[in-house]
């Protein structure tokens, strides 16, 4: 049985989508309805649904951010009321998205696409959407103009300001408030977000591999795929493994 999650901050809309899905795809089980991005991310991690309908504008994390953090096999259908750029990006990448208010035949089309993708996946293939999702997220989360390249990170600690050369950074990892700058010799905390950092760094050298993680390719030692086909990275000079979210797994295909 296929399991799905719905995330929308407006309860009536989530309920309506659930009703419509029950009519058009009775075998689909709705495992959870989340009312904000953070709840959606946590539930996806915990329940590992096959499919998630994510509203883009939500309190807490946006639907795009939630998608950037998915590590498992959950397919994403974005739902939005109006977002010209998002719609353009999806059209271009032929991803699944739904415009609110949606019509029944449009929802049917989405269901067909999702079913086809799930069948492909069950047969052991990756869906063509995976690669495009990263592109779309990349377009939507980054600003239009590339600002100047960063050469140093300045992190204050008490009365000191440490200057760290970008080439010494193994990776950046963000939590709620801070971003950790990891070097071989230790870590520093800064306030700049992953998205802002990604905009200012050389995309050839720094790869975003997760909503919260940006790695320096020069220090990538190895990758590992576990039995449920999740991808992990090992970084030189760092003991633990880093996780790669689904949208970015394709980046490591050719290696």
């Amino acid at each position, binding site marked *: 049985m296929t399991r799905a999650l719905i995330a929308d*901050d*407006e309860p*009536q809309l989530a309920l309506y989508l659930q009703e419509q899905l029950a009519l058009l795809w009775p075998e689909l089980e709705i495992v959870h309805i989340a009312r*904000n991005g953070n709840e959606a991310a946590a539930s996806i991690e915990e329940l590992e649904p096959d499919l998630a309908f994510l509203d883009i504008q939500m*309190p*807490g994390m946006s639907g795009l951010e939630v998608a950037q953090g998915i590590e498992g096999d959950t397919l994403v259908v974005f739902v939005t*009321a*109006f*977002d010209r750029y998002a719609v353009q990006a999806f059209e271009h990448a032929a991803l699944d998205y739904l415009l609110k208010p949606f019509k029944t035949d449009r929802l049917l089309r989405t269901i067909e696409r999702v079913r086809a993708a799930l069948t492909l996946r069950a047969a052991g293939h990756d869906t063509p959407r995976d690669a495009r999702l990263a592109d779309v997220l990349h377009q939507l989360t980054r600003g239009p103009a590339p600002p100047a390249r960063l050469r140093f990170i300045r992190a204050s600690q008490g009365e000191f300001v440490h200057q760290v050369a970008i080439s010494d950074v193994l990776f950046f990892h963000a939590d709620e408030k801070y971003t950790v700058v990891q070097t071989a010799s230790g870590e520093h905390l800064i306030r700049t977000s992953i998205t802002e950092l990604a905009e200012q760094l050389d995309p050839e050298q720094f790869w975003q591999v997760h909503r919260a993680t940006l790695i320096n390719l020069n220090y990538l030692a190895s990758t590992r795929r576990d039995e449920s086909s999740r991808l992990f990275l090992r970084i030189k000079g760092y003991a633990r493994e880093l996780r790669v979210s689904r949208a970015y797994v394709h980046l490591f295909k050719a290696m």
Partner: protein
Amino acid sequence: MKTISPIQLAWRSLWVLKKHHPEPLWAQLAVGAGLALPIGIGMMLINGLLRGRLFDLFSCLAVAYSMLAIKRGIEKLLSKSSIEAVSQAGDWRAALIINAIAISGTALGTAISLSAYSWHSGADGWDLFLTHTAAQTVFLAFVVVIAVGSWSWWRLHVKQDTLLRQAMEAQSRLLQAQIEPHFLFNTLANVQSLVDRDAPRAKQMLEAFTDYLRASLDQLRTSDSTLAIELTMIRSYLELLQIRMEERLRFEIDASDEALAATLPTLILQPLVENAIEHGLEPKIEGGRVCIRARVLDGRLDIRVEDDGLGLDSARRPRRHGTGMALSNIRERLHTRYGPTAALTLTPQALGMQASLSLPYRPQA
């Protein structure tokens, strides 16, 4: 953006009283000379006042620069606020001052050139002037021409200014009355979702939406409104959102009867409430409350829009469109309408944001 040369700037603000002029002094002097020289040459051609032909040119320059000097002197002497009060378009006091500057400048310039003539030629220029009725007539004619010229220039300026302000006001009203597509489609989606399951609630929602749409279209047609009308529209907006956001939104509207009768420009308050929702409460996981209070105090209308949302933290989140636009739009409209006597201030709170609007109280007639 088109750049404006200093000369153009100087030309535009030639007769405008300002504490600080953006254009450099040389541009002002150049424009002064540019006006004085053709007149001087004209006078030379019809052989003017004081025989010495080049002297006509000199006296015209003296007159032009005397006017500039007197104008700068007045600008330096008066305080910034009184200059602003005087230079409000359509104010007769400004026209009077401009005319006084023009006439006293003419008198001073003529006096200077007469003295210079005496010093230069050894003859008594003053005596020549006082004994020649023709010279005095020419001087008087000159004064009249200058007075009429500056008066008509002033009338034209006021007219242009009023038209420009009206056009700007209409444009910014149009911008603010625009219904945000995200809001529109989400509301429609909610009606769609309720129509089968909860028809009475769908009906209630459609009604609130209709009220809101009608009110915002009405606002487009007028530039003045009362607080009572504005608050009715805001109430239907908030009721709509409450159906959508459920327990995540609470609101309170509290206005004294005196405040309700106040007149104010349309759609000044609505964007502040929308901001509180869009940047404060909508992105906050647990939601919160927005509170609108209006009072009349010491002849002023004070309106406060408070929310306990994300406040400054919302700046860290990328949103659909900037607050900056709406706020600068409101500030501009307040300034056109009330000059320096109205203010909009945003104060971050421990929790959320407070927007406060203060303007002169003008009750509805």
